[in-house]
């Protein structure tokens, strides 16, 4: 009863992955944005916008997503230690693209205790701060289906993307010196599969499909949550970054920050905007003009040159100062 995969808008685990070679339906032809003026498609092939919906109210914090992510992407995070928390590894790393974050929350309104568990990872923003900040052409691209992906061959490991991201997601590998983050399993999506984490998620807290479908599903879930007394339940799809292609259903959408600091109104920092905005052309112009102006003046203005009179004045002054005694011959340096 497997449903055939829809290459244009793949869904979570509707079909098992192919084992025969399949041409990827995601590549340069679908690039709508590319960092630092990198190559974009002339007229990009449109794909249906996809999204991953993370229903925090269904999430049991089992870390299957982390496990599936490690296995699919063949990253090898190190076996760490326990520091008295459930987060392991303790933060996102270049080898751990997604992380369950646990918050023990005493709800002041209900007096009940709640254990809030959120899957952290790249939000695949419509307006990606990482892409804006990146200085390397083509190192960060955005495909027409909304996926923001790093092209590691072009990455220089400068870490600007880390500063550009409003969600503190990218990590720089100290081994390979390239930036790493969730790819939304672009390699799976390219062959009509959902991301590994979404497929694994035991409770379907993570689902994947068209952004349209996911938004509709979210509405259904929000309704259910409201019926259970979560009056502020809602969909987290922050407009500040033009919406995201990873969205959350939150029981307390009025205070996202209680979910281990999920930003309330994330947007690309003004500092980054100015640095990447006006600062650059103005700077270039200033330098360019100064250089050219200087060059011109130095070349064509007759300059401030020393005259023979000046030389004579100098000799006089020196003699005068040395006057009154046999002139001490300065030991000669170089041939006169």
């Amino acid at each position: 009863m497997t449903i055939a995969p829809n290459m244009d808008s793949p869904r979570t685990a509707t079909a098992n992955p192919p084992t025969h070679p399949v041409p990827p339906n995601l590549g340069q032809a679908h690039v709508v944005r590319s960092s630092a003026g990198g190559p974009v498609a002339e007229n990009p092939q449109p794909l249906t916008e996809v999204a991953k919906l993370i229903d925090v109210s269904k999430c049991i914090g089992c870390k299957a997503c982390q496990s599936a992510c490690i296995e699919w992407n063949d990253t090898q995070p190190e076996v760490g230690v326990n520091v008295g928390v459930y987060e392991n590894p303790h933060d996102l790393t270049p080898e751990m693209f997604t992380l369950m974050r646990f918050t023990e929350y005493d709800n002041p309104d209900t007096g009940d205790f709640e254990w809030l568990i959120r899957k952290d990872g790249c939000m695949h923003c419509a307006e990606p701060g990482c892409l804006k900040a990146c200085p390397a052409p083509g190192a960060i691209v955005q495909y027409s289906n909304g996926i923001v992906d790093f092209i590691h061959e072009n990455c220089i490991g400068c870490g600007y993307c880390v500063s550009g991201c409003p969600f503190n997601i990218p990590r720089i590998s100290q081994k390979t010196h390239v930036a790493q983050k969730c790819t939304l399993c672009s390699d799976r999506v390219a062959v009509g599969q959902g991301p590994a984490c979404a497929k694994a998620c035991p409770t379907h807290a993570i689902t994947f499909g068209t952004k349209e479908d996911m938004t509709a599903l979210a509405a259904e879930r929000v309704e259910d949550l409201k019926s259970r007394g979560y009056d502020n339940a809602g969909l987290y799809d922050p407009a500040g970054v033009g919406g995201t292609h990873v969205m959350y259903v939150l029981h307390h959408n009025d205070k996202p920050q209680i979910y281990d600091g999920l930003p309330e109104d994330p947007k690309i920092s003004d500092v980054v905007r100015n640095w990447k905005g006006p600062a650059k052309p103005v700077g270039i112009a200033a330098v360019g003009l100064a250089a050219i102006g200087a060059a011109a003046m130095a070349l064509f203005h007759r300059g401030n040159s020393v005259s023979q009179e000046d030389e004579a004045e100098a000799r006089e002054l020196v003699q005068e100062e040395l006057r009154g005694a046999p002139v001490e011959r300065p030991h000669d340096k170089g041939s006169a």
Partner: protein
Amino acid sequence: MVERKFSEPTDEIVQLEPVEVRRYIAFTRWNHWFTAICFIVLMLSGFAFFHPSLYGLTALFGGGQTTRWLHPFVGIALTVSFLGMFFQLVHLNIIRREDLVWTANIKDVITGHEERLPELGKYNFGQKTVFWGMFWLILALLITGIMMWYQYFPHLVSIETRRIAIFVHSVSAVLIVLVFILHIFAALWTRGTLRAMTRGTVTGGWSWRHHRKWLRELARRQRTKPAE
């Protein structure tokens, strides 16, 4: 012995016919040129990350990755080298009253009417500006640069701080390049200056014209005491 106010101990009149004055010893000159080379490398590699249209400059250094790790190390080298210069030259670069007068009459400087200006020591205000501009900007670039140095200091500062650091770094970079251009321009526009950093000496005329106090002091220093 005459008190030394406007000159370095190593400055001296090395020839009388015609007058030739040593302005910089070899060490200082090497120090300067090394700093200059570092500066140019930094400028080119920095420009590569400053604007996409200049990214191609990374090719000069063998690609983006190399440029990325090279830039900060050269930055350190420049800082060290510059400090060398700084300590050699700092005390003659203290701003003095005559500098203000000089600045007030900057028009005469440009129009070449230096006879209307006060006599100056080894440096004029323009040179001092370059000196101090370089100093403060290099300091700013160093500090923000370290904050941005992901390879070694990934968790030194918060992301918010790093954003500001990057911004300050870029702005300082633009400014220091402008100072750099001013420096070269002045060196060339004021003919006869360049040899100070190449051969180490300047002509008496040049000294008399631009740094008379300095020249006079050197001459006095070389006068021998009258017999009893």
